[in-house]
């Protein structure tokens, strides 16, 4: 249980450190621009990291999910079609 307790305390500390850091940065100027861009940059990095180690089938399904998201603007539908596409491409390849 040392791991569980350490992860619980450590993770909450990280979450609260972020909260305190956020309040200490200026609300205008360069820092504000940086923080307003952070959500998109972090998710762009996350998708990059996932796809860097992905197979051809997953790249194909990612393209299908992207097309669905751009056309339908729906997260659940993109998930559903993405899952179907990866199953299809894995069966195909």
């Amino acid at each position, binding site marked *: 249980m040392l791991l*569980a307790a350490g992860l619980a305390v450590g993770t909450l500390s990280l979450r609260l450190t*972020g909260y305190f850091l956020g309040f200490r940065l200026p609300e205008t100027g360069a820092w504000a621009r940086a923080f307003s861009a952070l959500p*998109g940059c972090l998710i762009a990095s996350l998708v990059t990291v996932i796809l860097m180690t992905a197979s051809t089938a997953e790249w194909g399904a990612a393209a299908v999910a992207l097309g669905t998201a751009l056309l339908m603007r729906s997260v659940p539908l993109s998930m559903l079609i993405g899952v179907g596409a990866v199953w299809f491409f894995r069966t195909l390849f």
Partner: protein
Amino acid sequence: MFQPGLVNAMTARHEAAKGFCDITPLSLGVLVYGFAFGLLAAQAQMSGIQTGLMSGLVFAGSSQIVGVERLVAGAGALSALAAGLALNVRILLMTSSLRREFAGRSIWQILLGAHLTTDENWALMHATRSKGHPVGYWYLMGGGLSLLVFWVASTILGIFFAQALPDPRALGIDFAFTAAFIAMLTSLWRGRPDIGPWVASILASGIVVLFLPVEASWALVVGGLVGALTAGAQARE
């Protein structure tokens, strides 16, 4: 008679309910990973109560999976803890961007808000807002509560039933989160000023994955920071 407190409470409840409902497809995805973690926890000789407590108090799936997997692989507790916490550095960046949502909140609301912030509800809140819906703190909380309930329940059930379930990969369910994050990314696009920061993020995270022998989570943190700093450095259009 007009009662602003009552109106605010109703708005908060409505927003939390919307967050709870909107995140349902992602919560169902969490269910699959919860079962997988339960199976791993069973291998580490953890009981249902220990697993449920860990899931509720840590509430960071990937770090729990990596930490317990390290233990099962024979690593020491401190080494497993370091690997798990390294994965959670990204959450620091997420809560640091929630200044507007946390402003003026009570201590318990801040603690609860920080604890319930995860990749999924944080990204969904930003994506929903980018579509023109003025959602905030309670939307984040509604989504977080749904994820917490599904995560804790599925990790406990996973201890007993995971071996009876089909492999998520065989059904393609392991791809659900990737598809969700791709869809959220399209909603977060704000136009030309995002080109430079996003390209910088993609290049930086890609370089870390390719050339540095570190956990993939560090690539994510580096990519997010490099992109955000690029946005801060570029002239306002």
